[in-house]
């Protein structure tokens, strides 16, 4: 994409899935119009364009083995996402990606993995887990413990997939909600408390944390208390971005950029870079 750094690839929306009870989070499945899908890995992101409304970054929700299309899960937040939510199958949007660096899958080999997600940011963790459960990776990974919390049961993303993961032998799934309804049989507690109470083994573990700032802030000390070192805690950062390639200047954490040097950083790195994570 050399000559056309800022000219997006045209992508046709082939499917829109309404994910949650509040109907404000949709998953868009996109197929390229001309050209293929540039290779990507979980943790990377792309800039999606709605022509006339602009461009914004979203982590890939799909996994590289799911060929032919890519998926992004988008919450209606601002002007661009509102416009995107109005579009249905057949509409053409733009995509620039992949941008940023993926989760360090090599580092996960032979290690147990503690994955902690909250709210809508779970989308990039879905890509990670789906990738790790493929034949290529699962033999090499250790045990995966997944914590995922939302405000109430209607807000879980990818419900069908969560049901399948419940029975996957490589993965133990721990879901929680802030407030239950009559359908909910699981724990009602905040994500950091769930992690603390579950106390997964940490001797050989790497942790990945992705979620709203408050969840991250309270989960980090729990993980450290359980024994995960700051160099083994990975956090996927979010910042406002425009260019995605380290030029526009806004997403820096100290001297590094979330877009080109991240978005995944270790807690150790973050502590050296910024007060705000």
């Amino acid at each position, binding site marked *: *994409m*050399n*000559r*056309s*750094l*800022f*000219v*997006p690839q*045209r992508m*046709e929306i082939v499917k829109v899935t309404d994910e949650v009870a509040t109907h404000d989070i949709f998953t868009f499945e996109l197929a390229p*119009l001309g050209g293929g899908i540039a290779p990507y890995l979980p943790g990377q992101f792309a800039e999606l*364009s709605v*022509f*006339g*409304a*602009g*461009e*914004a970054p979203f982590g890939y929700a799909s996994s590289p083995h799911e060929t032919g299309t890519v998926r992004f899960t988008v919450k209606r*937040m*601002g002007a661009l*996402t509102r*416009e995107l939510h109005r579009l249905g199958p*057949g*509409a*053409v949007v*733009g995509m620039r990606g992949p941008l940023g660096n993926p989760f360090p899958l090599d580092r996960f080999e032979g290690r147990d993995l503690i994955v902690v997600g909250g709210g809508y940011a779970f989308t990039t963790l879905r890509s990670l887990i789906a990738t790790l459960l493929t034949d290529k990776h699962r033999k090499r990974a250790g045990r995966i413990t997944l914590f995922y919390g939302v405000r109430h049961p209607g807000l879980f993303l990818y419900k069908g997939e969560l049901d399948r993961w419940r029975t996957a032998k490589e993965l133990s799934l721990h879901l929680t909600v802030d407030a239950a309804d009559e359908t909910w049989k699981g724990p009602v507690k905040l994500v950091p408390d769930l992690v603390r109470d579950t106390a997964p083994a940490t001797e050989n573990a790497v942790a990945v944390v992705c979620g709203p*700032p408050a969840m991250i802030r309270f989960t980090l000390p729990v993980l450290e208390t359980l024994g995960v070192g700051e160099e083994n805690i990975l956090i996927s950062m*979010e*910042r*406002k971005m*425009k*260019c995605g*390639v*380290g*030029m*526009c*200047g*806004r*997403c*820096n954490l*100290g*001297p590094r950029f979330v877009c*080109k040097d991240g978005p995944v950083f270790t807690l150790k790195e973050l502590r050296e870079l*910024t*007060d*705000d994570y």
Partner: protein
Amino acid sequence: MTRTNTSDRSWTLPAGALPDLLAALAATCELWTPRPVGGGTRFLPHGEDRPLDLAQTPPAHSVKAVLFPNPETLFTYRRNGNDVALTPPEPDGRSLIVFGARACDARAVAALDAVFLGRSIPDPAYLERRERLCLVGLACVSPAATCFCHRMGSGPFDASGMDVQIVPLDDIYVFHLLTKRGEACLAPFRDRFEAADGDTLKKVAATKAGLEGAEPSVDFTALKDAVKQHRDDPYWETLAAACLGCGICTFLCPVCSCFSITDTGNRRGGRRVRYWDACMFPAFTKEASGHNPRGDEPARVKQRFFHKFYYSIENGEPPGCVGCGRCVIHCPAGIDIREIVSRFQPEAAS
């Protein structure tokens, strides 16, 4: 006058012949010259409508405004049924000559290069202009009281970044051809020039010597190390107490190159443009959720100076300041970057 020791890389032009030379260049090249508009001089596409002004130091805007125009169309989009056609702008094949840039502005191009050409993918629009650029610089014979290029490791005669450097003497201009590109741009007009003789070159040297700075350059590595230690210094709050949070310092800075991207038009058709943005604006980093990692004025003021004197150096890029003094001249709140440098410059370096 006997001609001895004439130079084939230093040519002279009678001052009166400059307008004709510029007109000839403009006929075949994309030529930008400093000319006055509304009280300030800036680089404009060459024309006869306004006189040339080589006196205002520094011009209101730098070479940045030519290489990184504000706003700039990245592509046009036009919807056609469900599909959409995306058309980037046509490249311009001509040489791009910026005439009369001072040492500070020429030097700033290296800092712009680091951002626009130094990432994994070069910026296509910037690269397109940069590859056509022939920077015909002007030795700065009347630095302003707000100038401090010496302290930023340069000087009025610094030719780094220039393809040609012009030195104005009494009634002639001496053109020093510094690069192949500079030679190529001026070669077709060789017969308008004479080779500079030894006396002329002596005069140039004397003019240059008269402008050597008493002020030594800062040690940028030491400055970085010092600035880095002051993440929590209450000084940032003191500075921010007067800062209005406007974009003057960043927009007029020849180095500051932060931008934003937006669509102008509607769903049927329009343009995606990029435009100068500033770390001084709260909206620069404010996220859709409302969270703002640099939510207060001290954090934003600090970001500007940290970027210039810490992050750039740490990342092996040119320093974020070339000492042009535009921010000093125009800051309504009187914030003077020289004071900030002095505050953090370790004694050993001064």
